[in-house]
């Protein structure tokens, strides 16, 4: 039997040093993403370093920034009343993801690192759990090709795609964080550094197997969100194939800074349609100084999809993405009137 070692360090320093001393080692937090991928043979670690006892699970809302420990569970963060009141965009992004059981286990740090749901990626590594299927996938097996391009691509991305990969970045939470200009704090073999969440994600280009700008051994320890009044006028709107427990077909994270009825600044990011959490600067720019009405919202939303490149079965994601974003803008602006 392929043995797997398991250790439970009690400090970040210890976790990092354990990881650096074994080539096949990897961190595990809630395990909801990693264990699936292990059964599917996409991931084959030789050692699991359980980081849930190293701390970094506190939630602080008192200073000038929100600081959320990477090891806080999705459900704990979703239950935080201050965040729910002042940043519905964050709470909604968490509550519309996965299921209650998964959220009880999953951490908000690891959530940023979940891998794509592309079926060819997940079910093509030859695992018995996938009936031994082997599909080409440049992300899993660099240079092997992409089965999704020219295949069953209904759920694939339309933005940020390349000739090597069209896999969607699946998370909801990273989209909301991207919209709010959040940063992560990273602790690694070379000490600490900060990185904007948007800087964590790479476009697939010709190297879709390189997904995150994290160096080996680096641990995400904290998520830092600058406080902003736009949190009050925000939403995470998610459209999926069923009412709960499904990944987004299209989603939009919107937060608006308003002066009376006018938008002073808009935070807009998209999920479900792109290869990484997708900031929409054209939309943000367009909205400045506008008063939101449905036609304006649609016009703004269209700008985000100008460069969309649909495949065979996912063309609808362009129109759906536009309408989802337009709805999100309306919901966020409606919230304006109630506060």
């Amino acid at each position: 039997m392929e043995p797997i070692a398991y250790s439970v360090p009690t400090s970040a320093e210890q976790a990092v040093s354990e990881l650096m001393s074994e080539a096949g080692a990897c961190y595990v937090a809630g395990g909801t993403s990693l264990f699936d991928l292990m059964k599917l043979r996409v991931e084959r670690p030789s050692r699991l370093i359980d980081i849930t006892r190293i701390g970094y699970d506190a939630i602080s809302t008192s200073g000038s920034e929100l600081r959320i420990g990477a090891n806080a569970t999705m459900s704990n963060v979703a239950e935080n009343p201050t965040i729910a009141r002042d940043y519905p965009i964050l709470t909604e992004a968490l509550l519309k993801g996965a299921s209650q059981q998964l959220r009880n286990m999953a951490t908000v740090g690891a959530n940023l690192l979940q891998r794509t749901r592309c079926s060819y990626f997940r079910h093509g590594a030859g695992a018995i759990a996938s009936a031994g299927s082997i599909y080409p996938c440049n992300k899993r097996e660099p240079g092997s090709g992409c089965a999704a391009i020219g295949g069953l691509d209904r759920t694939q991305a339309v933005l940020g795609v390349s000739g090597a990969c069209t896999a969607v970045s699946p998370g909801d939470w990273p989209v909301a964080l991207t919209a709010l200009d959040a940063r992560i704090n990273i602790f690694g073999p070379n000490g600490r550094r900060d990185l904007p969440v948007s800087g964590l994600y790479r476009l697939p280009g010709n190297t879709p197997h390189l997904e995150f700008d994290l160096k080996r051994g680096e641990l995400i320890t904290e998520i830092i969100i600058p406080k902003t009044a736009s949190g009050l006028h925000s939403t995470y709107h998610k459209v999926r194939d069923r009412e709960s427990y499904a990944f987004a077909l299209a989603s939009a994270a919107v937060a608006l800074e308003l002066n009376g009825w006018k938008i002073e600044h808009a935070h807009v990011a998209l999920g479900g349609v792109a290869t990484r959490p997708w900031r929409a600067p054209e939309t943000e720019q367009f909205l400045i100084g506008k008063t939101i009405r449905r036609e304006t919202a649609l016009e703004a939303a269209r700008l985000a999809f100008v460069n969309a490149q649909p495949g065979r079965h996912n063309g609808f994601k362009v129109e759906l993405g536009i309408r989802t974003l337009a709805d999100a803008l309306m919901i966020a602006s409606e919230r304006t009137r109630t506060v």
Partner: protein
Amino acid sequence: MSIEKLPDRERIDAFDKVRGATRYAADFQSPGMLHAVLVPSPIAKGTVVRINETDALAVPGVLRLLTSKDFPEPDPDFEAPTGEDDEDEEEGFSAPSTVVDVIAYRGQPIAVVIAETLEAAIEGAEKVTGEYEEEPFSVVMESPGARREPIDEEITSGNAAEAFGRASVVVDETYVSPTQHHNPLELLGAMAVFEDGRLTIYDTTQHTMGVKNAIAASLWIDPARIDVKSTSIGGGFGQKAHAYGYSVIAAHAAILTGRPVRIVIPRGHIFHIASYRPKSVHHVRLGADSSGRMIAVRYVAEHENSLAGGLSPAEYHEGTPRLYDIANYHGGGIQVRLDRPDAGFMRCPFPHQACFAFESAVDELAHKLGMDPVALRLQNDGQIDPMSGKPYSSRFVTECITEGARRFGWSQRSRAPGSMTAPDGTQIGWGMALGNYPSSMSPAIATLRITANGKTRIAISGHEMGQGIKTTIANVLLDGLDIDPMGLEVVVGDTSAAPQHQTAGSWGTAGCVPATFKAVTHMQAALRELLDGRSVPGSIHRQLATIRRPYLQVEVSEVAPGQAPEALEYLRVSGDATAGPEYPDFTSMSWIAHFVEVRVEPTTRRIRMPRCVSIVDCGRVISPRTARSQVHGGVVWAFSAALREATEIDPRYGGYLNSDLAEYLVAVNADIGEIEVGFVDKPDPLANSTGLKNLGEVVMAGASAAIANAIFHATGTRLRSMPFRIEDLL
């Protein structure tokens, strides 16, 4: 016959289930138990040239690897006659394929690895490599190599071609239902023990006799030395209605190793080797005269299947010709032969798809005629089966429709599509449709024993898939006999306890409740005889104790109307001796009417179903609690089939892509609105001694059409291809 209403009793297995105490097949363990894992074929079609075993056998803990060479050819002389055999030509017993070297579809087992632990077995299985001669393959109906094979029989009454000449309004459309997989929570699996020359297998199956015979034929064992136990199934839905090769493999492995062997098929592999609801395409031509009388139907149904699979498209015509009193019907079918596993039964196997197509067409007809869909249907009701000319044993379709319409508030509906839009732009639609399903029956043999020390045990045919068959049996016993409910044991799904029918096609209750009623009557008579006029107070247990009898036992059997006593023999040897829906003097069907409200979001066009009213005619309701739950489940699944579920097959590889519960989307709680259930609850005077008809399948029939019809009413867009997805209305 007693025709009182039966009480609403809670499920007798609920307490165990909520505590997690119920044991399913793969929960059974035995000392020294080994684990078997199947090695799936990585190619979609071809021949195994060589299997490289070395790496697999080198995995610590792996004991053996079996390939096709390790399995005997099934016994060609094995026989297990069924009730149908004496009508048609004698068909030999066909054993399921086990481990092959000629690969018919991707994922078919080419080897099995047996190991001390599950982990070692999985790792061993993943280390098996092979060399293959690959052949071109066709896996979807649209594949150029798909072979279209029209069925021999044509199902006709009257003269449809001529009648179309008289029709003033004709609908001619094509409707599609996708490939779907069952996905019960409990995976396919078994645990086999071979001891003292006897094989016992704990399996998850709706057909223990089928498993017994499959093992007997495949491994050349006397069936008398095999016991199959499937006492609690974590969902069957037809996936488990027939024997699979894995059961034979577990048995063979147990015999070869001399140790108990457990096998569990992972969900991703189940998608590849289990049966499925085949994709089907329905061409419906329906004609009516100007008064709205339906006079002619031409309906050809095609579906996908394996190269030799027996599931016949002729069966789409068991329900549709009987929905209405239509004199001229012409039905045909086409098998589309593909390099896939056998298509099979999945809840409401044929009428679900057929009623979706046909009842959508009827709605289209109503629209063309400018008639109310309810009025059109009421006008075409009839009491005689147009296919056989026989009367129906009972048919309360008009009652189902009128009661449903009343409860739903149908009279408030404004007819024009799109005319019920809410101020916020939400499009509201009301649709309805009918469904029917054959009411079949199986013979049964039951042994009922009541003891002086407070116990009651009934051993009878049937399998508990969660539908509530044990509760139904208990309800009859507890209603008719003064016995202690806490001491009641209902034994089903065990070939060592009683002959077992295949529990499918909705005949489960009809296959055990009439015998249970009979057992009650016989028990009452036996007790009367025993007491001989003495008045002894207390429960039956007390009475027996008082007169110093340790126990009292009766054995009864029951056959379907018109069935000869030989039916009991078929039941004993094959578990397959059903009768119906056509009986000598009548045709027996169950009926349902569904009324649905949908709401379509104005912007992103999500479709929601806030409410549904479903009224059923299933004869007498034997167990109100579990009957209601069947209707809920049927409507939920129809919703799921219409709006969620589709298996994705990549024609380039031949595999099933979305082969897990995260990617194969079934309806979730948040999808489901209010479902109101009503029963006509009138005992059927002819179908059997207890007045019941079938329920578990009919509940789903027609509900998908009601949803499609409601969507049309809401939006003016007619959706003819399930599942209806967000992009269909964008």
